[in-house]
């Protein structure tokens, strides 16, 4: 008997989360993320967890932060309109350094937009949706198998860096069924939280103290359980209590950003396809990367040296690797189902002599392999000097 099953993306997201230790889910129905809630409603009570359908996305986002601080790994899932409503809470999770996972199965926007059509329109909202300076981790899988795998990574990174992690999915991936194999236990690492008893006194009472500024590794999360526990969205010192002197304020905001920025190479995940000899590089993520791979296979038949860089963490992206690749290519194609939200992040690293072609689409349809192939042909003719 084959180990493979047919699995939907949304279902893989829910099951991956449970495998990662998620035991609290709060959500509000929205296409195309509702199936995640439905699977959670069915599965969480079996493992002693709690599912609750809240009155809106604000309540969903805030209750998962409450549950996480109280000691239970938790997540919510939504789509564009709901993701907009969650932004204030995401900022609170950043400020209070609360591990949480926010899934956004994207649909076409703005506003109600195209509820059942794919879009990659929330790239910038995932990065900058909440107000104020901050850093964030955003993971973006391409296949159902990856949804499961990287959902576990999302929970691990949330715990390790004490931060909310945004998990972006394409509408198409959420609803698509693909061959899927449950990974074996030995292939999986799950970050477990420290318990109160394992911590030193000062770790309990100074939950935000870090070892040294240059390496602002977060302290393990101290969950609720000691009367000294206090969190606040106000600027606070390492005890968690409000303290608004300029030095502390500046230090806190910088540390919250640096703890991600300085560890970007550790956090960043990416995939490459046929980049060894590539003269043309395609940058694409999520479902669009799959069209790109198909286009690359066709182009390679014509001996066109083209490859793919696919960021899996779109924030932070591996600048180290990307700069290496960008330093040796002639042409760059950035394909995304939006009007160029990610392009400038990449272009900033490209050499000025690189020929650039953007492939953008906001019609609620996928970018097809043919469209990417056309872009390849176009830049190729440019390189060959016919253009």
């Amino acid at each position, binding site marked *: 008997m084959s180990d493979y099953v047919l699995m939907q993306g949304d279902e893989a997201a829910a099951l991956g989360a449970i495998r990662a230790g998620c035991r609290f889910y709060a959500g509000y129905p929205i296409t195309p993320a509702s199936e995640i809630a439905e699977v959670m409603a069915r599965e969480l009570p079996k493992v002693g967890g709690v599912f609750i359908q809240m009155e809106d996305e604000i309540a969903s986002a*805030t209750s998962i932060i409450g549950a996480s601080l109280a000691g239970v790994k938790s997540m919510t899932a939504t789509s564009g309109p709901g993701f907009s409503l969650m932004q204030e809470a995401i900022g609170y999770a950043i400020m209070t350094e609360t591990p949480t996972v926010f899934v956004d199965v994207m649909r076409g926007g703005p506003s109600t937009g195209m509820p059942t059509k794919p879009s990659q329109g929330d790239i910038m909202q995932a990065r900058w949706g909440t107000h104020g300076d901050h850093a964030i981790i955003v993971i973006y899988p391409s296949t159902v198998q990856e949804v499961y795998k990287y959902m576990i990574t999302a929970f691990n990174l949330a715990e390790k860096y004490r931060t909310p992690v945004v998990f972006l999915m394409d509408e198409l991936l959420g609803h698509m069924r693909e061959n899927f194999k449950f990974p074996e236990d030995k292939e999986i690492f799950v970050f477990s939280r420290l318990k109160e008893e394992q911590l030193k006194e000062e770790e309990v009472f100074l939950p935000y103290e870090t070892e040294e500024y240059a390496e602002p590794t977060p302290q393990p999360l101290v969950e609720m359980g000691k009367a000294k526990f206090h969190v606040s969205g106000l600027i606070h010192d390492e005890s968690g209590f409000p303290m608004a002197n300029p030095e502390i304020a500046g230090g806190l905001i910088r540390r919250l950003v640096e703890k991600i920025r300085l560890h970007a190479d550790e956090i960043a995940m990416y995939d490459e396809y046929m980049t060894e000899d590539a003269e043309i590089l395609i940058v694409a993520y999520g479902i669009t990367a799959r069209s790109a791979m198909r286009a690359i296979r066709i182009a390679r038949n014509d001996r066109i040296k083209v490859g793919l860089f696919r960021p899996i963490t779109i924030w932070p992206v591996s600048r180290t690797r990307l700069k290496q690749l960008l330093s040796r290519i002639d042409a760059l194609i950035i394909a995304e189902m939006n009007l160029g939200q990610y392009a400038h992040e990449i272009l900033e690293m490209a050499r000025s002599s690189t020929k650039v072609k953007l492939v953008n689409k906001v019609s609620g349809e996928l970018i097809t392999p043919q469209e990417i192939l056309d872009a390849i042909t176009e830049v190729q003719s440019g390189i060959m000097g016919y253009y």
Partner: protein
Amino acid sequence: MKTKQLLKYLRIDRWPTVWCPGCGNGIILKAFLEAVDQLKLKKDRVAVVSGIGCSSRATGYLDFNTMHTLHGRAISFATGVKLARPEFKVIVMGGDGDLASIGGNHFIHACRRNIDLTVIVFNNMIYGMTGGQYSPTTPEEEMASTAPYGHIERPFDIAKLALSSGATYVARSTVYHYNLLVKYIKDAIEHRGISVVDVITNCHTYYGRYNGMPQPYQMMEYFKNNSVTIEKARDMSEEELEEKIVIGVFRREEGKPCYLDRYEEIRKKAMKGR
């Protein structure tokens, strides 16, 4: 009770508070601590969750597990805490703006779910923290910084809102009626299911100043002279009750299963594979 005995529940190192001298918030805080002390609750197993506002700063001064959250969202944060850690007594504190305006939706839904939280509304009928704007409980015709010609909206009666949303314990007191306040908060904490205590309190700095009662004692006198018990109110006409504060226990329904009791049934069904 002597205040000294209650010091162990306070983070005195965080004193002085941000509150104006004479603010009613301090009275509510003391009543709460007295109730906790009478119930002999373990500090480490009490969580207090607040939103944003003058009243919501209370959590910084209380030595329990405390969360100072977002404006209006204390109830939903607290819902997460309670469902994650049922063994905790979870108390929500917030202002009338926090709990009945921006957080009004969470308020009614928590009542409907009968989730085991105690909600203490610091109802000063005004937005204190932001400088005296009208709130959903500001009475008609009263003045506020955003109602310079008098307020034209009808106020919410928080007790009635809780009752009609299905809350299983609902009481109201003013800060003048201190002993009642202690008793209601104590009963509310003991109650299994959602309990709401609407506490009418003084923001003399804004509400009082705009409405001819700039001193705390003037507001206290107002509360004293204008409160009627729920028993007495039953024999009074609607006109007679206008501008009166009805105090007392509006509902105490014990033995009704709370959200977690019901969820336990779900778990059993799910584990049986149904």
